[in-house]
């Protein structure tokens, strides 16, 4: 049996999202009968791009069924991801209720896979980090990873064009362990906002683990940007796979 990274498949599939909308989603699956844990990958504000699809394949390469729905699919299924992102941005972003409905559809698709072990985790980057937290306080998932998600806490600046607001008050409803990965040089979220989230998790008695990296800012996982920080990213990936291994595979 080859290692998962030597035998995986990836393709676009269709799933049902909020309100029964048909969304395209990028699905990456390890070869073999499983059973495998599932990972819902949430793309960042720039959209359903190649970098996020590469991340999705990375989970399959590590033995997880992974799916990344196109949160901007309502702009048109055949629209280029960058054009869809620009139009979604212009429209004020994705409403939280719509996102939760789309995430629910993606989670159901993961659990319905014949190789699923029934467990599903969620991970998101940038705006997707907030979405990962929103998923974990709204839907039944087994583990969550928030990579530098802004506006879980903090105050949304005046004149902000996206329809988002802090969701820290929902922390008591968090229904799974949360891993948080943050750069100490980030401004959104900044250190104080990460402190605020940690305090809320502690007060609510939730299982969580935070890792905060010096000399790293926003998007330190992005390999094609100057924000990339290999030390933080390599350690971060290790933490992610340890986390999902603990909650999606063991037990």
């Amino acid at each position, binding site marked *: 049996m080859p290692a998962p990274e030597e035998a995986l498949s990836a393709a676009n599939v269709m799933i049902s999202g909020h309100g029964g909308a048909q969304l395209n989603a990028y699905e990456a699956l390890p070869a073999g009968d499983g059973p495998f844990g599932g990972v819902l990958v949430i793309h*960042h*504000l*720039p*959209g359903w*791009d190649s970098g996020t699809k590469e991340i999705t394949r990375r989970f399959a390469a590590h033995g997880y069924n992974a799916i990344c729905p196109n949160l901007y699919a309502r*702009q*048109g299924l055949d*629209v*280029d*991801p*960058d*054009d*869809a*992102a*620009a*139009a979604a*941005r*212009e429209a004020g972003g994705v409403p939280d209720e719509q996102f939760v409905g789309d995430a629910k559809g993606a989670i159901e698709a993961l659990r319905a896979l014949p190789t699923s072990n029934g467990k599903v985790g969620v991970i998101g980057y*940038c*705006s997707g980090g907030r979405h990962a937290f929103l998923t974990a306080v709204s839907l039944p998932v087994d583990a969550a990873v928030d990579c530098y998600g*802004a506006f879980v806490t903090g105050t949304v*600046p005046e*004149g*902000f*064009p*996206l329809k988002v607001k802090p969701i820290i008050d929902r922390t008591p409803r968090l229904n799974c362990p949360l891993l948080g990965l943050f750069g100490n040089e*980030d*401004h*959104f979220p900044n250190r104080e906002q990460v402190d605020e989230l940690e305090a809320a998790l502690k007060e609510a008695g939730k299982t969580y683990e935070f890792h905060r990296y010096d000399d790293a*800012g*926003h*998007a330190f996982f992005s390999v*094609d*940007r*100057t*924000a990339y920080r290999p030390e933080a990213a390599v350690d971060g990936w290790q933490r992610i796979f340890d986390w999902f291994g603990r909650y999606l595979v063991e037990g």
Partner: protein
Amino acid sequence: MCSYLTVPTEIAGSAKGPQGWMSVTSASVYFDHPFHAPFDHTLNIDFADPDRGPGARVAVELSAESARRLVASINDALAAAGAAAR
């Protein structure tokens, strides 16, 4: 960081995209993560005709420094044209 802030403006003119020339009616200007340019953040301009759908867009992603140079070039060119550009 994601600045998120978008500064839109109405425009009148045309732009050439993958489908050829088209009329454009709006320009969205924002400083945020690029889709393609190899920088953490860029000054992005979307020239678009929203009535024709998300694909009716010509996009540029410029480094902050080059965006400032572009602004100066535009102003210089308009000034040089004098009355004709008023």
